[in-house]
């Protein structure tokens, strides 16, 4: 473990026992005396290290184990086995010195006191985290300005919009200037504009406070824009850890050729160059989208230009979402170093 490693996870496993209920009333009655239990491997032998100031994106489908990992790192869940260190602490000990240095923000649930204005929660957190008056005021002012929420501080939280509430959540979580920040789906349910605002804010916070941030998100844009490094988790196992760009190099087998023709072309002529994804030849529009193996993409493009009446041609990388879908779709998901 190097000196500037802030988070270190070795062979982490977290298993849950869940019980299966057969559907319907019959199943409910049967479950009164006989229950089938199954062990779910939420996190299954995951290891990684994160350095100070790094911003890492956890990518994975629902139930992949992202949130469970964050909860273990926060000291909420007791690991089934493995070693976890955050800022030199074992999170499970839940030491005050540790808790004062990190924050966990969950997009789906809040810590704000629902029936009171957000300011009340801020003041409570000031007392809980023992934040000195001056520091509190300065941080609060800075965060309020960055997120532009000065005018909603005195309004009952329950009356705020989702976006406003999420902003207030972030302020509440960051008042004590945490060095480590776990963000679980921070932009879930927000509109595109609000997502962008929060993303910019997270980027700014990372830069200003040199904070180490782990972010989970369903929105690839969050990860693409914020994180240089991504860890992909599937069914509790780590299947990729590295630069986001490398996912494309590693998993994208094809490039996408978008074509516009000046005259009609036959489908069978196109087929010889690659796999047809879209083909529209109606009226004045003659367009097609082809999937072509990466290695031969430029050669094939040259051939198409020679043989077909091409008006416009574009070679693109497939969107990262598609690549990841393909990765997850792979039945055998062998772990990748």
């Amino acid at each position: 473990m190097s000196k500037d490693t802030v988070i270190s996870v070795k062979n982490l496993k977290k298993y849950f026992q869940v019980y299966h209920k057969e559907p319907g009333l019959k199943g409910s009655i049967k479950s009164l005396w006989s229950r089938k239990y199954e062990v779910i491997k939420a996190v299954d032998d995951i290891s990684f290290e994160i350095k100070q100031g790094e911003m890492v994106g956890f990518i994975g489908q629902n139930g992949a184990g992202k949130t469970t990992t964050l909860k273990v790192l926060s000291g909420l869940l007791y690991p089934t086995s493995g070693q976890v260190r955050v800022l030199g602490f074992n999170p499970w000990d839940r030491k005050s010195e540790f808790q004062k240095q990190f924050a966990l923000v969950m997009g789906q649930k809040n810590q704000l006191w629902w029936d009171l204005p957000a300011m009340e929660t801020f003041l409570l957190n000031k007392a809980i985290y023992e934040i000195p008056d001056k520091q509190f005021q300065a941080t609060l002012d800075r965060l309020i300005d960055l997120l532009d929420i000065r005018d909603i501080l005195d309004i009952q939280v329950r009356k705020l919009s989702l976006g406003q509430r999420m902003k207030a959540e972030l302020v509440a979580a960051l008042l004590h200037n945490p060095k480590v920040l776990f963000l679980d789906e921070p932009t879930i349910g927000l509109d595109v504009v609000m997502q962008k605002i929060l993303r910019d804010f997270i980027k700014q916070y990372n830069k200003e406070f040199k904070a180490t941030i782990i972010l989970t998100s369903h929105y690839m844009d969050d990860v693409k824009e914020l994180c240089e490094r991504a860890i992909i988790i599937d069914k509790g196992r780590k299947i990729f850890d590295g630069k986001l760009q490398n996912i494309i190099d590693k998993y994208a087998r094809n490039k996408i050729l978008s074509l516009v023709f000046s005259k009609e072309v036959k489908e069978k002529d196109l087929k010889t160059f690659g796999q047809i994804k879209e083909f529209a030849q109606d009226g004045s529009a003659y367009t097609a989208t082809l999937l072509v193996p990466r290695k031969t993409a430029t050669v094939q493009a040259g051939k198409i230009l020679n043989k077909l009446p091409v008006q416009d041609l574009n070679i693109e990388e497939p969107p990262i979402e598609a690549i990841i879908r393909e990765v997850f779709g792979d039945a055998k998901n062998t772990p990748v170093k």
Partner: protein
Amino acid sequence: MKSLRKYWSLLKISWETGLVYRVNILLWRFRQFLLTLMSLTLWTVIFGSADEVFSYTNAQMITYIFVASVAQSIILATALNGLARTVYTGELSNVLVKPVSVYLYLAAQDVADKLKNFGFIIFESLGLYLIFQPPLVIPSAAIATLFVLWLIGGAVLNFLITLLFGAIGFWSPDIWGPRFLFFMIVSFTAGNLYPLDILPEVLTRVLFLTPFPYFAYMQSQLFLGRIDSSETLLHSAVLAFWIVVFAIIVKIVWGRGIRSYSAQGH
């Protein structure tokens, strides 16, 4: 000092939250008021023209019910009836990730609720006093002090038992069954409907093997001067014993619960 301040802040914010829904508070208090009113009316009818029933004079019984209902209001008022749900839904995570003691955090909420109730109890008691005019014995300073200590002891005991019910949420969402059963048992055994010593002796003895008499009955008897000074020490010790026993159970159960906590959805 600083660490105490955080619980003070928590107490204040819990209080503020409790005061948001005014109609709720008023209806809740009205329910408590009606319960005491019913009990007092019932006993007034039972006595009719008789001077003494179950070795209690009319005046003694009215005074007893009066004191017992005040004691029970203070001891059993809690903000944590929904604790198991807080645990089961994972809301507890908000507390567990912060540098606070989870027990003191919950205790602060409970105290806030008791303080809120206390204000109402004074007004209600005044109303009931004016209607029934029970002859109140003013206890000596020593007895009054012990009375307050026993009230606090009873409240702590109830807090610990409430924590145990809350702990069910670590394993199961089925909480209302056991909780409701507990409410029912308490209403019959804490002594706010009738003094426990009017029950058959065997039943009274069994009850004294449980902590229930310390939820109102013993405090009221003490206040009314019906406990010998030689026995006060014994009962103080028994109350302390129950607190220690339940504190140990809470520590063990919550320790295990937090270990198997799954922080669902949070």
